[in-house]
């Protein structure tokens, strides 16, 4: 009996010890090299629970419900700004983040528009939203001079009608698609008034019949398998599709281009919820991620640029040398950022999006 009680006590102790040494991370799907997760556990002895999502909306709802149980989450800048206002996050304790000196001031200056003074978050990755094509099939349909780097490819109904049979996917994210439509129309991509929304809706509705699906993660596999010809999606995701296709040697060649009319630049920020069960371990995780070598490993794997200046020397040529990932000066000027949607504008936006997608 005594022995039993002892083992019970050990069990209880073991459980609480495990709880104290556990960090729960909620990140985007297909967004890290799994080897890094193992490295973190080996180096720190902290158990890492790693869950994934594929939309900012899902993350935000969990955070606003409270008690999400996560220690580190990765919202996009525009969503982060609103969540900070709602009191979702705790300020970072910089004394626990010695690696924060590795961060890149150019990116920090841009993320400060969402998180003033970067008090609540660090940049994980940043990228652009653009066009992924199955080069062979698109050229077969539209000819060798197909405009694969132009928004005209996906917003000109003439092009889309021809591409429809082959399959076109758009992101199921109005905060990405409406700015793209506005850019195509030559309007301010950050416009949120009813008039601008109507114009964007008209442009999207005109090509709607030719879009097979609105989805924010399926297009990686669909492009790589050759199921679809064109996807409007996130840079690194499309580059991952390119690599998966190359590895599978299935004859599919994928290319990514940031639209030359202007491309949305976004920032995914790591932050610690105010009610995180283990903020101590969360800081250790952030510091681990900000290590130059680790951050470079992450970028080398997912093909997204990061906000870590010191990591650049460890990046492979495929990443640092690719202007689709690290744009040169000229390309950087072609990138724009957008601001957060307020509650009333958001409702109009969602309603517009539903109307575009379902025709009602």
């Amino acid at each position: 009996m005594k022995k039993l009680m002892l083992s019970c006590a050990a069990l209880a102790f073991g459980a609480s010890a495990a709880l104290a040494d556990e960090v729960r991370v909620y990140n985007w799907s297909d967004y890290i090299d799994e080897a890094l997760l193992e490295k973190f556990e080996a180096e720190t002895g902290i158990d890492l629970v790693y869950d994934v999502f594929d939309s900012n909306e899902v993350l935000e709802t969990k955070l606003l419900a409270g008690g999400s149980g996560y220690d580190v989450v990765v919202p996009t800048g525009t969503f982060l700004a609103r969540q900070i206002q709602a009191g979702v996050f705790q300020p970072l304790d910089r004394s626990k983040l010695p690696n924060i000196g590795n961060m890149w001031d150019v990116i920090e200056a841009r993320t400060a528009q969402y998180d003033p003074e970067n008090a609540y978050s660090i940049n994980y990755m940043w990228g652009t939203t653009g066009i992924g094509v199955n080069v062979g099939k698109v050229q077969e349909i539209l000819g060798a001079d197909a405009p694969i780097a132009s928004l005209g490819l996906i917003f000109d109904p003439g092009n889309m009608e021809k591409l429809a049979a082959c399959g076109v996917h758009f992101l199921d994210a109005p905060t990405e698609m409406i700015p793209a439509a506005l850019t195509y129309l030559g309007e301010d991509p950050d416009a949120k008034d009813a008039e601008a929304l109507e114009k964007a809706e008209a442009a999207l509705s005109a090509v709607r019949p030719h879009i097979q699906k609105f989805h924010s993660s399926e297009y990686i596999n669909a492009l790589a398998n050759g199921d679809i010809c064109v996807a409007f999606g996130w840079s690194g995701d499309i580059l991952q599709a390119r690599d998966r296709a190359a590895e599978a040697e299935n004859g599919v060649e994928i290319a990514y281009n940031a639209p030359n009319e202007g491309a949305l630049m976004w920032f995914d920020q790591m932050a610690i919820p105010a009610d995180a069960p283990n903020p101590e371990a969360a800081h250790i995780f952030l510091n681990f991620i900000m290590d130059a070598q680790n951050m470079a490993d992450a970028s080398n794997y997912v093909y997204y640029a990061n906000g870590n200046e010191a990591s650049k020397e460890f990046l492979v040529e495929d990443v640092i040398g690719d202007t689709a990932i690290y744009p040169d000066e000229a390309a950087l000027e072609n990138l724009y950022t957008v601001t957060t949607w307020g509650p009333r504008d958001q409702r109009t936006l969602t309603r517009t999006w539903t109307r575009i997608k379902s025709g009602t």
Partner: protein
Amino acid sequence: MQRFVLIAVPYTWLLALFLIPFVIVFKISLSDIALSIPPYTPTLEDGFGPFFSALDFENFVFLTTDDLYWKAYVSSLRIAVTSTAITLLVGYPIAYAMARAPEEWRATLMMLVILPFWTSFLIRVYAWMGILSQEGVLNQVLLWLGVIDAPLTILNTTTAVYIGIVYTYLPFMVLPIYAALDRLDGALIEAAEDLGCSRVQAFWLVTIPLSKNGIIAGSFLVFIPALGEFVIPSLLGGSGTLMIGKVLWEEFFNNRDWPVASAVAVILLLILIIPIILFQRNQQRQEEA
């Protein structure tokens, strides 16, 4: 005393798992959206007086101002009714064959109906994506057989949603009907035939009415989850498939508007509960008569 305990158990169950959650959802539907945790106001922390005075039916009024909600309810009802009918047409013969099969086979047949439940629901729906896609198994086989020249677009259409719902809920239709048919006394059919009924007539006049309870139970088991279905339309359906589950999701996740989302949910519940109560009343009256 014993009787009281017996009655108390199911009522406590109902109270804890139905009434209390409903009251919470109903309360949120009367609240206003806010940028905070949780994303609505008022909460009980505001004190009782301000708490009750801040509640109103604004969100229900809002639902009438946009025809999206109405259309989504109607479209969901249509999909739920149609798929229940298809499930019944497919499920009844299966149940009938099972009930008529030799005694020693029945356990095995029953097992075969239940077997798919051993795999996760999500995986089974996901498998349909592999079967129905452009490059999927179905299209490959049809192309190979020469039945079609170009791959059919089934995935991401409402047809795929029907296939998914019928496949998923088929066992819920088969099992209650089988239970009813299994209890059916074969002598009644013999009697009907002796009295001059053809086999078809005997089926219509004896078998169907006697399995009525199974049909009704099965139909409810399919109709109710199909009406609020979210997973199947979001995996198999295209963006043209408008269903109330999807609208609910958008209110919650895209608009962060829990109050309106709750109002949508309350109405959905009323759509489900009112016909069920009317039906039960009717049943009771018939039994009493």
